[in-house]
């Protein structure tokens, strides 16, 4: 799962100015940190649903995704 996030998903999100980092995958819950443009995306939930679908298709795993947004301080206003 970690390799999949790092090598398959991350380059795609980076291509849009976003960023995803793997944190853990335990008990069917994938925890990831979103940075960059993803951290302030208003419709990140749609992307998370898409990620679930990609994981299901490529790895055959149904998972929940716990998304942590790490937004830089200068975007907090």
């Amino acid at each position, binding site marked *: 799962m970690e390799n999949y996030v790092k090598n398959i998903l991350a380059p795609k999100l*980076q*291509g849009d100015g976003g960023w995803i980092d793997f944190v853990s995958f335990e008990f069917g819950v994938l925890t990831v940190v979103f940075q960059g443009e993803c951290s302030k995306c208003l*419709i990140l939930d*749609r992307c998370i649903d898409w990620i679930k679908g990609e994981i299901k298709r490529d790895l055959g795993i149904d998972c929940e995704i716990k998304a942590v947004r790490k937004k830089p301080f200068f975007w907090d206003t």
Partner: protein
Amino acid sequence: MAHIKVIRRSMRPEEWTDLRFGWLKRYIYEDKFEIENIKVRNARQTGENDYEFYPEGWQPLKKGDMYFTPDGTAFFEADVFVPEKFRGRELWFSLKTAAEIIVKCNGKYVGGVDPNRERILLTPYIDGSTSLHFEMEGYNRSKPDDERNPESLSVRGCRQIFEGAYLAVINHTALDLVYDLELLLDIAKSESFNEDYRAFINRELNNALNLIDFDDVKNEDIENARKYVNDVIFANDDYKGSGDVALVAHSHLDLAYYWRRIHSVQKNLRTVLIQLRLMDRYPDFKYTHTQPQTYEMLEKYYPEVFEELKEKISSGRFEPVGAMYVEPDCNIPSAESLIRQCLYGQSYYREKFGKTVDNAWLPDVFGNSWILPQILLKSGVKYFVSNKMSTWNDTNRFPHNNFIWRGIDGSEVYACVPPTHFITWNAPSGVQENWDAYQDKNTGGQTLQMFGYGDGGSGVTEEMIELMHRFPKVSAMPKTEHLGGSEFLHKNFDGNQNLEKWDGELYLEMHRGTFTTKSDLKRLNRRLEYKLREAEIISTLKFLKGAEYPYGEIRDCYKILLTNQFHDILPGSHIHPVFLDTVKELNEVDARLESVIGTGEKYFNSLNFKREHLTFIEDVNGHSERLGVKGNWVIPNLAALSSGEIPWRTFAGEWCEIGDYVTTPFYKIKFNKDGSIESLYDRELKREWTNGEFNKLKLYKDNPGVYDAWDILPNYKEKEVPYRIISPLKTIEKSSECAAFEVVIGTEKSVWKRIIRVFRQSRGIEVENQVDWHEKHVLAKAQFDCNVLTREAVCDLGAGFIKRETHRNTSWQQARFEVCHHKWFDMAETDGGIAVINESKYGVGFYENSASLSLLRSTIRPDIESDMGRHEFCYMIYPHPKDFVTAEINNIAYEYNIPLVKADLTCENSFGELFLQTMKMSENGKMIVIRLSEQNGKRGRIELSGKVKILNMLEDVIGEATTLEYSPFEILTVGIMI
């Protein structure tokens, strides 16, 4: 008691007008027919025109479905039979989308839709066919063309909801009224216009809209409202405007930024296509487009559109501007790179369109080097356009908009720094703001207003043209004229005797971090600039011995380098994948040039002066180590442009004492444990060089805010980041030529090894840095508090030098707290000074007797990982007697930057005192081109052994000579016929 804000809930008359304006837009479409059999295939772009498809293949796409993927391209197809009631009417395609979609219908490119436009006229392109086959290619990204546009900002994101695609018929009466209102409401809401006029518009717009019953909208009522607007508002000329504004249609296209360069191929196609289709509809519309590289890509991948484009160029409506191959950064590239930008850009324009473009169009670049005017002028460019200094300066208002720019050598070009942004929407308020901000009203003629969406391309919309056509009806607006870029420049500058003059660099008081961000790109750029020089000189000399000249290979390599000098690539202001692409491409160029250069038995000195300063030469059996490579420190003693053996001889005597002080033939040095120098006593010159922190590594919190990769703020020194000494300074080498001392310091996240070298035969003190860098928002600098009384620092510009004041007397000096330099800077008194020579750094700050060389940054936007990881770089401290010219600092810096290679070649002529910047075969293969650069501010002459052709930088013959006269900072190009 808590303050309770009272919100007015009843509607003001202006809000009532706005509301009705919104309602009116619903009547733009008279009829719509949903295209229901759309299918979509998701992909990800992997090359300029290559795609990796998702495994699902073609899928149906229905209204309400999600579409697009992160960094995704989607292909669409649909077949539709035109309904009976639409036949014989003007037919449109409508698709509201956040993506950028190129649309083909029945095999023809009919236009593009994107966040800025939602419909395409079909009728002229489908030959009355009732059976339509659509093919579309779309690219969606989270960053819209222009973040100032709230509509496009609201739909950002990788996954979008498909809102349906339609065949449609337009109600032109309603649409015309919408445009009238768009124009007038912009004026009514703008404080740039007269208050009474705005009140008049508000009152009369209300009256006009009262003619429409919005519970039962009738076309004749819309017509009546339009007539009212025309007869009452537009007919009124009681309110007089002033000013004269030239409107130039343009779209700024960042080749890479929040997208990889490969995406710019389709962004450019969409942009060009949209402008061509607008030309079909509006006979007076003309458009100005830069960057030969984008034309080249269009020709390569979309020849059908390129042919159409050529026709429009022939008829003068589509205007190629910008002589440079791309819009490069204009601080960091070498003089030769800037020349090649012009040479390859102009060569393309000449070959394909029969034009030499006489302007440089650089709206978004982050300041402009003082060496530029000469290069432009000698490349056929008389006019220079760049916006940033007027709209982005953080301290001083740049005093001119239309003026003459005088370069380092005295060359003068006409310069336009338009008063406002290069991306505008052609609204009346923007036009008025431009005129209000224009500072050369009495001397400069018209002011330049560019209009069109940009950054990611897209350009002008129908709405912008419709509004422009209405401007003459508004008496309170400045006079406007729709011109091409070149038309504007010729009309307002030619023969204008009143223009003010700016003599100096065009320093941008912002984006000062871009001299340092993404250190790897700066290192690779510097390395390849010199490697290309080496490859061309060696290839030319080999050609003279009968070998083939690798024209194509060198040109290809150059074009890759030039493309990666684009102003959001080399400065480091881009997302992570752009960095990965650039590093990959530049490393490939490096390998290709190795192959061109080849090898030989002897070392070759490509410099046209004797190489006599200490140099590191790789040798697996060497006695020293530098940057992880074994080798020896030797004085090559190689004559100009010649090859020879470089024998290594061990020096048997004792030359360096190491104790509390390190004593060399030149210095008595007291080091601190962190590798900084407490005392640097010059034994030859009998003087102390330090006066405070010297060669001290300084880490500062570097928090510039949203423009993270771009900016360093003036207060960056307020907060220092502490570090600790992991391993104090110790001796790691004492050989017959070099003594080296190593210190390892660290923060919680990073480890920084510094190796300081002193030498038996050189005044240089080299500092090697090996860094494992994992900071966040930290700027690393090397501080040099020099025991030198000076009010100016001298900075190398790559083809000459600039003197910059080191005091902060006025806001102009205060703003220049971080500046760009090339190979070296120097702080000196009349009888000696200190130069610091680098091999990959550009940012430096000065204050009084102190200099601070910027080494690394660690920004997180747009790239979270910017500059993270391993870095290796060196610089050399070079105290010297006399002034920097007499001390030959520039030559020493060339030796430091250009490694010796092996090639068994010689050249008889060394071309006097000027620097041999280039020796190459001419692009037409008929001449050897020699480019010589005066870099010390001197005048003189070179007697030649025979007659040579005098060339401009485009390699056109402009004269002949047997003697070359040169003046300070002049760059001469000559051709020797073969």
